[in-house]
């Protein structure tokens, strides 16, 4: 087993509001790791801390938030100890980010060439003719037709799907080893989404880049990811290989999320999770999921569960979770 490229250990990101009188633990002690070329799906509902986790990694937290503890190791170096200046050399060069809305992440006043070439210009020191060739290659790799012509265009001249591919080209321009994609296809139509996901897979195969896929859509995780981490109320409640978690989820929340997914061609009633996600400023005691959990006991409402290993590379934060060795053997045989 190789050492992980990215390792997040006990990360805590807190928001301070009302002049410091109230602290919201948006990310509360999460740990996960990512090997080179691997795809991790970060799954959860809105407000569960997915995006805050990503912003903590790239060092782009809003002023009200700060990393209160833990470490983020990228190829052995702790990113939480870096100065803003050092982080600028890392963003774009080692970690790139793709955001949800391509219209908001592209600058309407600059043409495509300027925006795609910027990371290569700053981080890789490429200039003039070779920069132009580099941009052409990048646009070609994200399947933009006639790139030499298209790079003189402005964002408004392109469709939503094409803009999101341009954002992908910018992310690749600095030659990063990790791309964080925060709901990159939410604004795209289904057929365009399918094309974009296929494209990301191709790019990953060509360049070996690792991807963290932030999404609330389990279908995307099933299609794209090797491993997944399920977040609820600022904590990772279950983390493991996509196959294990889809096959035999350990945490009731993972089970419930999978049960609430509409499956094509199935008319079986969906499993509805009762209640709604908790307010992070006012979390229930014990396990944060217990008010909505079908299997909760008295114990769950009083004591916070510990992280339990369920199998190889597979953990769950639940009092009911237990190792599933026998199941893994069944998987191996099947």
């Amino acid at each position, binding site marked *: 087993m190789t050492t992980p490229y990215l390792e997040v250990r006990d990360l805590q990101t807190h928001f301070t509001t009302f002049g410091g009188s109230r602290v919201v633990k948006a990310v509360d002690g999460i740990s996960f790791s990512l090997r080179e070329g691997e795809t991790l799906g970060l799954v959860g*509902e*809105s407000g569960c801390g997915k995006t805050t986790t990503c912003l903590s990694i790239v060092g782009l937290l809003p002023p009200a938030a700060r990393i209160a503890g833990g470490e983020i190791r990228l190829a052995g170096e702790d990113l939480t100890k870096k100065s803003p200046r050092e982080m600028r050399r890392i963003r774009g060069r080692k970690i790139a980010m793709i955001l949800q809305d391509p219209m908001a992440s592209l600058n309407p006043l600059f043409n495509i060439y300027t925006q795609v070439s910027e990371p290569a210009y700053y981080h890789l020191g490429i200039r003039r003719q070779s920069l132009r060739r580099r941009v052409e290659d990048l646009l070609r790799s994200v399947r933009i037709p006639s790139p030499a012509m298209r790079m003189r265009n402005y964002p408004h001249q392109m*469709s939503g*799907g*094409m803009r999101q591919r341009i954002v992908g080209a910018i992310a690749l321009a600095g030659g990063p080893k990790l791309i964080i994609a925060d709901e990159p296809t939410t604004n795209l*139509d*289904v*057929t*365009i*989404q*399918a*094309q974009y996901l*296929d494209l990301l897979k191709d790019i990953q195969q060509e360049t070996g880049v690792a991807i963290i896929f932030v999404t*609330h*859509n*389990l*279908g*995307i*995780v*099933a*299609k794209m*990811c090797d491993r997944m981490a399920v977040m609820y109320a600022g904590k990772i409640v279950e983390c493991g290989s*996509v*196959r294990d978690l*889809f096959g035999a989820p350990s945490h009731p929340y993972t089970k*419930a*999320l999978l*049960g*609430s*997914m*509409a*499956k*094509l*061609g*199935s*008319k079986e*009633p*969906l*499993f*509805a*999770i*009762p209640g*709604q*996600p908790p307010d992070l400023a006012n979390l229930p005691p014990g396990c944060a999921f217990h008010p*909505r959990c079908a299997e909760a006991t008295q114990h769950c409402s009083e004591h916070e569960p510990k992280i339990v290993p369920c199998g190889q590379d597979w953990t769950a934060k639940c009092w009911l979770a237990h190792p599933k060795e026998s199941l893994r053997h069944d998987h191996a045989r099947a």
Partner: protein
Amino acid sequence: MPVLEVRDLQKHFPVATGTLLRRKTGWVKAVESINFSIEAGETLGLIGESGCGKTTTAKLILLQERPTGGTIRFDGEDIGGLHGDGLMRYRRSVQVVFQDPFASLSPRMRVGDIIAEPLEIHTGMTRQQLQQRVAEVLELVGLSPDVAKLFPHEFSGGQRQRVAIARALATNTRLIILDEPVSALDVSIRAQIINQLEHLQDTLGVSYLFIGHDLATVAHISQRIAVMYLGHLVEIAESTELCAHPLHPYTQALLIAALPAHPDAKQERIAITGEIPSALAPPPGCRFHTRCPHAMPRCSVEAPVSKEVAPGHAVACHLF
């Protein structure tokens, strides 16, 4: 007799250029002779990508836009000719639930007043009767009658959507247009709303036109599905039949593009390329031929007509 019957429905929007002399320079053919019907107690799913005319169709049924051709019949009566009492009766019977419950409920009105408003307009109920009816429909959608006093901002997204559904149900509605009712909601809440809608249909016998772009969700709730592409209805069939034997290449592409429910599910690469063309300058012939993997010379010249290939399964494609 179907509750709603749409025949050769057509809506063209004029396009004008210039600021002073606004000359008509063309037409956006948003909806182009589509046909479908909805039976009592049935859900018809309407699926397609953005700009395909789903919402225009909904607006035509809601009389927010007037069609440029074709008819919409409700209980056998052409709604284009309705006025006075007949029109009021129609508006009472057909209601709508929008995608974003944060935008569709007035922040200045109490939930009880929001739900009572259509009742005040359409019925001569007294204050007490109104309150009673509001409590009734709130209970129907799984909310406590006490919440009538609250304002929308005191609710979560899922609860707001329940309020929107309660408002749509208040006037003993027979057909509800659901325009992407779960797209704006959290995943754990979507199933709640879908189950609630199914339960309401079972108990009240109301019909739905469910507009969506996620095939798995639409197929789950609908008995039949109509697929739209650039203003045309390309295929319509029972939802199980459509998912098992999609005929139109576009429907096939939508099925392939639908995300898998399990990592081990068989996954194909999507065969169609490019993006949906502009409705201002739609391609001639079959509008899908520019992206179709099976396009023939004939497709770019002649527009296919819808043919019934099996009972209840119609497709508009030259391959059939």
